[in-house]
């Protein structure tokens, strides 16, 4: 049953979720603020931030949508040998390893056009690719746990899993980028 289409009903449905999600996202903002000096010194890393956050959230939400559908169709079982689960997990890692090197190269090239990149192309591509590899594994773990939790608590995965996974992956995006930058740069 969809929520009633009145201003008040929509506000009542969305405000509690939005408040919690905003606080979670602020957490990643504070992590970002803690390495602001590094980001301002190396603009190429600053350019990576929205793309990394967005891509992490998208990898999670694509996987969550596919697992939710498989779950509704009854073709999913929560076992490591399940073909649907394993196939989708592989695809997520493969997608990350395809897309993140391009993100890194793109961020470096666009920065080089407009300002001093401060870092070499291989460093930026390495930061992006390593972040993507770690993030894809985390995205799979978060999505599988969230979908399983929705199943155990008899919630509709479409309503719950996608917003939770997208926002958790956003936060993980910043944390992983922070960690990799600490190691590589």
């Amino acid at each position, binding site marked *: 049953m*969809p*929520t009633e*289409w*009145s*201003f008040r009903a*929509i*506000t009542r449905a*969305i*405000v509690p979720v*939005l*408040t919690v*999600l*905003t606080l979670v*996202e*602020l957490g990643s*903002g504070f992590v970002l*603020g803690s390495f*602001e000096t590094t*980001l*301002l010194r190396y*603009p*190429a890393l*600053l*350019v*990576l*931030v*929205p*793309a*990394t*956050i*967005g*891509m992490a*959230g*998208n*990898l999670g*939400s*694509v996987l969550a*949508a*596919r697992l939710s559908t498989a779950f509704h169709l009854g073709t999913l079982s929560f076992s490591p040998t399940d*073909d*649907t689960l*394993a*196939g*989708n997990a*592989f*695809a997520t890692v*493969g*997608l990350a390893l395809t*897309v993140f090197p*391009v*993100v890194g190269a*793109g*961020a470096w090239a*666009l*920065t080089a056009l*407009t*300002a001093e990149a401060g870092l070499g192309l291989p460093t930026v591509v390495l930061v992006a690719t390593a972040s993507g590899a770690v993030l894809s594994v985390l995205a799979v773990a978060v999505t599988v746990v969230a979908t399983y939790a929705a199943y155990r608590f008899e919630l509709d995965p479409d309503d719950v899993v996608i917003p939770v996974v997208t*926002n958790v992956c*956003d*936060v993980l995006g910043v944390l992983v980028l922070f960690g990799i930058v600490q190691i590589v740069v």
Partner: protein
Amino acid sequence: MTAFEVAREAYREALPALSASLVGGLLAGVVLGGMREELQAVSGLLVLVPALLATRGNVYSSLGARIATALHQGLIEPRVRGGDPRLRSAIAGSIANGLLASAFAATAAYIVLWSLSASPAPLATLVGIAVLAGLFSGVTLSAVVVLAVFAGYRRGYNPDTLVGPLVTTTGDVFGIAFLLLAVRIVLALGGG
């Protein structure tokens, strides 16, 4: 299907949407990279960036999903002219909630930074920037979501699969671009 076939199909289906989001993310990144002066002028602004971008995604993908479901159920007609009152109140509700969440994010960020004695920019500056950016991007994203979902539906696309990539891509680009515009307006008005 074997795991390999599942993986190949999932990869092929997801790559176009992720590529669109890659382009959007990099465009947003370029604007953010060009905002270094503003980020230094308004202490605490960078802390707000993830929360403001996520608010756009959360509020307007919920609006898009709501419209998509209503179209499937025949509750609303895919026409903008002679606007359905339910559609108008859903849009007004989304923009109002987006503004509320933006102001809340700015206030919470200010309180935390202030209590850590990280000397953030004045509360009025941060809230002003967040609300102004929320208003600009709210109006734009509502228009994009409604028009694109209606146009897609009339051409026979499933609006459910359109909403996600559309909102994340346009949300990031417009979110950051209007954040820059809002910062410039507030700084010009003497905040900061």
